[in-house]
């Protein structure tokens, strides 16, 4: 994970944040389970088959869907293909560099992808044109243009909104809405001191010992999890993270993904 602009989060700032947390308050005044302000503009890029502009606090991402014809994977001849790519653009943060995705970017893309894939959000069986030969390939591409932490949740919200608005079309074929259902909400938390904080800012991410993401669906089931960063979590903390994710995720779903 990137450091802040100067490369190091000052010890003074860190002390201040931890102190605040003892009083149950985060640096920006939020409560531990509170997300920052979320703004979602669906269908932001007309040229894409589906798209969304997501602002999660000062984190901003644009998700776009392209759907093209191609070959299925040999081991799943009767399914379309879903692929998720995240670009942490160098415009988004002083230390981000141009070039192929690094391990941070790959992890984020794969966790976002996993949530959507495991919830079977996109019905890939309906994306077959000619079994074993030609299927629809759904590309989820996400541009990170401004970075202030918690990319996994911002990108998941963007991907879901973009998928929901997506339409499959090609010359000489009837167009149809991309078959999308069972949307997973990811909730990412970091552990600072003994507290789990939802929707961490970049400063919270930098000073956190451990990070955990839990993706859940409306049925209350877990679809994907990922622990990140060097520190550890107790089993109880993980169970706590799951219950927070279910509660907070359900509210997010209600508000933003209906």
């Amino acid at each position, binding site marked *: 994970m990137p450091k802040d602009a100067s490369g190091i989060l000052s010890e003074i700032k860190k002390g201040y944040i931890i102190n605040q947390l003892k009083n149950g308050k985060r640096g920006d005044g939020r409560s531990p389970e509170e997300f920052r302000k979320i703004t979602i503009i669906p269908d932001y890029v007309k040229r894409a088959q589906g798209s969304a502009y997501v602002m999660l606090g000062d984190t901003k991402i644009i998700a776009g869907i392209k759907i093209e014809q191609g070959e299925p994977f040999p081991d799943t001849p009767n399914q379309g293909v879903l692929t998720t*790519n995240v670009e942490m653009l160098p415009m988004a943060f002083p230390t981000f560099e141009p070039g192929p995705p690094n391990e941070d970017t790959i992890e984020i893309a794969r966790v976002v992808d996993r949530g959507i894939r495991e919830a079977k959000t996109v019905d890939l069986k309906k994306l077959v044109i000619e079994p074993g030969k030609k299927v629809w390939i759904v590309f989820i591409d996400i541009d990170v243009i401004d*970075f202030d932490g918690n990319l996994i949740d911002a990108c998941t919200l963007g991907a879901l909104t973009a998928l929901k608005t997506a339409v499959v079309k090609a010359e000489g074929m009837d167009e149809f809405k991309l078959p999308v259902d069972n949307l997973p909400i990811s909730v990412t938390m970091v552990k600072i001191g003994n507290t789990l904080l939802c929707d961490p800012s970049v400063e919270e991410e930098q000073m956190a010992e451990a990070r955990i993401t839990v993706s859940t669906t409306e049925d209350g089931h877990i679809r994907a999890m990922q622990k990140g960063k060097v520190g550890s979590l107790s089993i109880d903390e993980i169970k706590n993270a799951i219950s927070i994710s279910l509660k907070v995720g359900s509210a997010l779903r209600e508000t933003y993904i209906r």
Partner: protein
Amino acid sequence: MGTESNIKLLDENGLRLDGRNEMELRPIKIETNVLERADGSAFIEWGGNKIIVSVYGPREAYPKHTQDIDKAVIKARYNMAAFSVDERKRPGPDRRSVEISKVISEALSSAVMVEQFPRTQVDVFIEVIQADAGTRIAGLTAASVALAAAGIPMRDMVVGCTAGKVDGKIVLDLSKEEDNFGQADLPMAVLSRSGEVVLVQMDGDLSVEEFNHATDMILDATKRIAQIQRDALVARYSVETQGGE
């Protein structure tokens, strides 16, 4: 220029597919400081183009051997989002974007007071979110605003426009169909006050007279566009003032 076709790009009244006359620009909107992290940023909507530009710097040029002991190096990076065009664009630079990044970097270098910041670089990241013909000029025009918004000392603003030939006629600010099926494309950018040309590329088929006509139209249009640039920068400052600074 693109493929030949039977598509008629001008109607019997000489109007274009989107209803514009030959001198008419598509709608242009510029907004500054749309991003938090960048030292300066701008967003431009120009017809169907949506482009975000962010500026970082001046900061130490890296790697060291790229430093110029006499001046700052302007490094523009033009990039298209995968979903910005009809057929998905594979992430990463291709030959076209490398060339565009080069000519934009050169054009901006004329405008920035590079001699004030030796050994540094100024990074200008241009992300095309939605492409609709004329992205390099729209990106460059927004980049100039983003540099100013970042407080980088500039001797002049860079402002550009495209002209082209469509059904045999010179028209301003090509649309996507005109770019695809027209007979010439002439993107040009100038320094706002001096009118000196800092970017010109051309491809297609133009007689000398057509070229002269096209440049006249472009120069006229850049004055209008420069005003939009200025308004965007002023709006930003006025907003800031309202905010109490």
